[in-house]
């Protein structure tokens, strides 16, 4: 986190544009996404269809409803994604997922723009104010606690797959009404791999990268007997098989997606939350690596959707949510350095999108109205049937 420029030394105002207000910028951003999607992906504008074709829900099956949430730690901007020049980076989102999805163009994060605290806010429905860099639980109950308590679900029915350090406490809050043991089980793929390797990391270093908001701070990864038990008892993977497969992967997020697939096959949780993190390499300032992260994330989202269709426990009864935790700084804001960070708090860094597809979701529709990051948890409550009583957001009517 850093403070925005106070405008000294002639840098306070951008001379390239007429400095529209944050609200105007957010609106322009929303319009550009909508126009692009309407012309390029052939989707409809939700507002015009809402009355005529209310919720063409997918056929509900007798199977238990499942929800998978994918968040990107490390937002992606319009010009590298939905704007015309960015289309080439997201072929799977554009051609495969968006035509089947409801797309929300204006998801605003009013909270702290740090990845752990923002992901915690997404998971609680409250703008958390915890230290972004400390391994501490969210202050408010998480979606996993509401889900398990209200629906009386066992621990195995809610899981989080997260990028190692910092996120290991995201599964449950320190709220008195809920407390230890009532949340999700958290699996940290890099810790699993570290444990499986027993110190011999030479061939796997590329999977153990940690991209942080302070890229120079790289604490040692931990891996213990606990992780090995998770590997063998829950995921039904031998250390040798895990190591052999890991050798075929190229990034930490690919490792996370592999573990996700194992979880889906072996445990089939009803609520599964995956946080991807490769895009956040942007903090090191190399644009090519940032774009590479976007392309990989796009491919992994496409693969996840295919996994959902191919797994009997998930096919036909799963709703998939995909959303970045927030955006990144605009090129035009002199207080930032473009794609590299998300420190200015400008409209582009606060505004992102959400794509929802699968069971109960209208296909090929774009919704322009503004919603907040904190609306996610109440929406999940509406879909799965629990009451997130302390969440601040509101259910998204187009989804519940």
């Amino acid at each position, binding site marked *: 986190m850093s403070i925005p420029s*106070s*405008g*000294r030394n002639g840098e306070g*105002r*951008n001379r390239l544009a007429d400095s529209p207000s944050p609200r105007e910028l957010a609106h322009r951003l929303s319009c550009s996404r909508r126009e692009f999607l309407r012309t390029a992906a052939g989707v409809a504008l939700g507002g015009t269809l809402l009355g005529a074709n209310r919720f063409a829900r997918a056929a509900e099956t007798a199977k238990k409803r499942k929800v998978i949430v994918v968040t990107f730690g490390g937002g992606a901007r319009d010009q590298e994604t939905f704007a015309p*020049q960015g289309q080439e980076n997201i072929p799977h989102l554009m051609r495969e997922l968006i035509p089947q999805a409801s797309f929300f163009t204006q998801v605003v994060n009013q909270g702290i723009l740090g990845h752990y605290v923002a992901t915690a806010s997404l998971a609680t429905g409250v703008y958390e104010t915890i230290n972004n860099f400390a391994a501490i639980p969210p202050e408010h109950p998480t979606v996993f606690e509401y889900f398990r308590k209200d629906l009386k679900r066992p621990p195995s029915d809610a899981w989080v797959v997260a990028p190692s350090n910092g996120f290991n406490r995201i599964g449950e809050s320190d709220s008195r009404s809920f407390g230890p043991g009532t949340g999700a089980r958290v699996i940290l793929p890099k810790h699993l791999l570290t444990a499986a390797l027993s110190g011999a990391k030479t061939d796997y270093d590329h999977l153990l990268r940690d991209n942080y908001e302070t890229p120079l701070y790289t604490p040692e990864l931990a891996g213990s007997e606990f992780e090995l038990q998770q590997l063998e008892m829950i995921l039904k993977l031998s250390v040798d098989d895990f190591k052999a497969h890991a050798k075929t992967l190229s990034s930490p997020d690919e490792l996370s997606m592999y573990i996700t697939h194992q979880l889906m096959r072996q445990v089939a949780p009803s609520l599964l939350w995956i946080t991807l993190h490769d895009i956040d390499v942007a*903090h090191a300032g190399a644009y090519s690596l940032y774009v590479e992260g976007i392309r990989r994330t796009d491919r992994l989202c496409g693969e996840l959707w295919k996994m959902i269709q191919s797994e009997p426990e998930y096919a036909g009864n799963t709703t998939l949510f995909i959303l970045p935790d927030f955006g990144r700084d605009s*090129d035009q804001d002199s207080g930032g350095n473009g794609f590299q960070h998300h420190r200015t708090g400008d409209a582009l860094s606060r505004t992102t999108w959400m794509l929802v597809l699968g069971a109960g979701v209208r296909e090929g529709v774009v919704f322009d109205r503004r919603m907040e990051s904190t609306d996610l948890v109440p929406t999940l409550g509406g879909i799965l049937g629990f009451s997130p009583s302390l969440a601040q957001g509101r259910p998204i009517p187009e989804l519940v």
Partner: protein
Amino acid sequence: MLPSDLKPEQFRGYPPEAKKLVTRHLQALQQLPMSFLPNLLREVIDYDFKFPAERAATEKELVALSSLSPEQRSQWFHSFSAIEVSSKLDQLDWVSMPGQFVEQLSAYLWTTHQLDAFRKAALEYADRLHQVVPPEAPPIPRLGIAIIGEGVDVPAEPLFRNLRPHGAYFSRVKPDNGLDQLLKAVAARADAHPLPYGHWYIDGGAASDHDPLLTCVSYQDLEPMRSALLRKIRTEIAKPGMGPEQLRTFLAQLRPADLGLRESEGTALDRFQVKILTEGSGTQIFSTTFAQWAAREALRRAQPLTLLVRFAPRQRQKPMNELLSGDHSEAELDPAGSLIDADMGAYYNWINQQRLPGAEQSSFLAWFENHSEALVIAPSMPRGTESTTVADLHELLSWMS
């Protein structure tokens, strides 16, 4: 302590010129709100080590603040005054350590959801200041040059996509002696319009032979400083209780002597180089990031008349622990990725140049090193056009003026 309690002796730790400056304007500083003043002092405390353009801007800002009537001051700062600062923050030694205070204030503003209000207040302030102290036009139009693509034969994607709408794309440039031509052109400008820190050459690799009139910063020349810094980072990370924010505070306190320079305080350029490495994110490990960030900071701080930036291939991405090891003996390079980085870096250089006074008259040249592609932005050049005219870089420069 509150601003109204400020006394001259509290600035005894400031460098001499900064102390004189702050003492001269103490009465005005005492009237400023707590959410604003430490930000200003963060600039003032480094006054002795700033570039001439920064010094002039700081002096003018303080003169402007001192000349405000009580009513004007109230108008200028009502938004800052509305921002609540916790009493816990008041108790920090924000006079001696304004930088650390601002870091904590930043975290506090995010936590209390006051960041947007602060941002709005800062922009309002900047507008008022610019009305009272209009930026001075440069004595000659600025020129920016970006050289990209060393080590690449054929780019994977079209070059200069972000810059093309703003200028003319030339596809048949004669590349022979291109770097030499550009360095000579930059030296000629420095010779004709001598100005301290007015003409810069930043190289992401090893600097080529250049005129001593140019202020030169290169990634390779700073290798000893980068190695010293990475050693310190490794040591700090290993300490119990160390986290990202503590590391950042540690880096902000480093001085030139800590990184092996002989003079304990260093020159303005020494301090600049230290800040590029300690405040930049990724500048220590990727030469493309170094070149882009150094250019951004040179433009923002020194406001040069001329800036030539040559991007060089960076090392291939590896796990951060390996990148921090400082072992560059067999660093594998990534020329193709570096070209993409540099193409974006060139665009950012142009954006940052256009933030400076005189933007309407300034010009910019981006060249694919040793190849025939270049992009020219100048008042005389039609925007969004392409040319197949055969020309060398010297001719392109002459058409820009």
